[in-house]
């Protein structure tokens, strides 16, 4: 079939033999040459690949260290998270779970210079990194840049539950809930006071007070 020449003669046989052997030596010469190339691989756990300096020091190949935009483990900066739940809705596989309550109004500048207004605080912010596929769809629409990928990729725990990262501690959640209750009371009082003031301002038409 493939290797059978049309007419077998000693000449063709010899020709094939010579061709085969030269091809082999051609390949061998390339293999031999690459023995003297700089090594392209690194001894991974021994070399800290997060620090570019250390990598460059030990490594003579052409590969670079990890870029800063590497999509590794997710992290949330709770200082600038407004608990708006946009990331939760953007995640296609529902890794993120957020619950929020009212909080004191706060205006600040997020990552990238965007101004943000916080009116709610998270009482729960869990990311199940066991399910996460590091697609980046949650970090893209975040208005403040609170949720972002880090270059960290070594986070293997010994049980699955440990992969659910909780960014709000129970104490913080309790505090936020307590504050939310206070705010509710304050708001109710403010509302009542406002209604009373309005009623006093218009004495000609007495309104039935049903607050």
């Amino acid at each position, binding site marked *: 079939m*493939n*290797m059978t020449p049309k007419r077998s003669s000693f000449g063709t046989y010899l020709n094939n033999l010579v061709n*085969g052997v030269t*091809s082999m030596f*051609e*390949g061998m010469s390339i293999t031999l040459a690459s023995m003297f190339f700089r090594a392209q691989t690194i001894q991974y756990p021994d070399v800290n690949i997060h620090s570019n300096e250390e990598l460059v020091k030990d490594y003579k190949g052409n590969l670079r260290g990890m*870029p800063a935009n590497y999509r590794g483990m997710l992290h949330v900066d709770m200082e600038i998270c407004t608990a708006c739940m946009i990331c939760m809705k953007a995640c296609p596989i529902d890794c993120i779970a957020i619950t929020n309550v009212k909080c004191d109004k706060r205006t600040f500048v997020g990552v990238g210079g965007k101004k943000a207004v916080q009116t709610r605080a998270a009482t729960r912010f869990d990311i199940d990194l066991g399910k996460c*596929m590091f*697609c980046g769809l949650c970090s*893209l629409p975040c208005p403040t840049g609170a949720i972002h990928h880090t270059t960290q990729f070594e986070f293997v725990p010994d049980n699955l539950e440990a992969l659910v990262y909780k960014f709000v501690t129970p104490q913080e959640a309790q505090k936020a809930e307590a504050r939310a209750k206070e705010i509710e009371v304050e708001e109710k009082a403010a509302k009542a006071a406002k209604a009373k003031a309005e009623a006093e301002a218009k004495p000609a038409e007495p309104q039935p007070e049903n607050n």
Partner: protein
Amino acid sequence: MGKQLRTELMTINMGPQHPSTHGVIRFIIKTDGEVIHECQPDVGYLHRSIEKISEKVNWQGFVPFTDRVDYLASMNANWAYCFAVERMLGTEVPRRAEFLRVMVGELNRISSHLIAIGATAMDLGGFTPFIQLLREREYINDLLEMACGARLTYNYISIGGVNYDVPRNWTEKVGEFLEHFELAMEQMNRLISYNRIFINRMANLAVIPREMAIQYNLVGPNLRGSGVKFDLRRDHPYSVYPELDFEVPVGVGIEGQVGDCYDRYHVRMMEIRESINILRQCIKMMPPGEIQGKVKNVIKPPEGTIHVRTETPRGDTGYLIQSDGKTSAYRLKIRTGSFTAMSVIPAVAPGLFIADLIALIGSLDVVAPELDR
């Protein structure tokens, strides 16, 4: 003489776990000694209901799943899907985003072809080319990682543009890589393409004639390997391909007959060269500007059905999308090149040796996840 010896065909299974099937595929082979009488591919081991998932997640959220359709060329898979949704929405994609898409798409095409070539060589017993080509692929992965932060499942192309802008010196880095890569390809040619042993092994093997290739709906390099000059980038141009100048390489029976394994291999080699060409032009033409078109936060394409085809490394990938105006697709069908490439195997395999079947699978560049979705 005594009794006649009874002979019968032997049925053997190749796969599902077989190193040369490039994923989980099973071949049921009826053999007469070393010669194949019948070969029936059995697919479905990697079915992950990706089409069904599209009915559950929102339009933008389905992009990462298209990565998993063809993990060797996820950029192109992203692109095909996003292009289809954009056509439904009527979104304008900014020019810079189009150029970025072409660049990452061509880089990804090169890296996919490197795997195809390397795997073919490895299946035929040459381990060195595979390692060397994987090393070259790492450079491409580095470049794509600089652009989007991931090395395999990119999720870079989004509906309406691309997700991230590239670093400032990225195009120069691509240029540097191309300089280096052309030399490496020369070396690869010496190592495999001109290697007499490799040529004799591939030439005149498993010939798929022009008519048969069209009948079986082969696409991409497999179709062009049979001498059909058809490339969606040229014949149904999309994106900025009309502005770019490139050839469509076809198989001409360079070492044997038109449509043999070597032709399919050779077309891939030539396509890498054309991709280098395209990349060079893109580096020169890359405009500054926006990278994301105007797309609403919640995408709701109008009711209707659309079928969009794009040229991916494994041929033409079609997305048939039916929308009922909701936040996720009503029905989505993915048509991939590997599936039809698989269907031609029963037709050409009879008469081959078992070892040649492996060369055939390698030359068709079948990727199992794309086969089953």
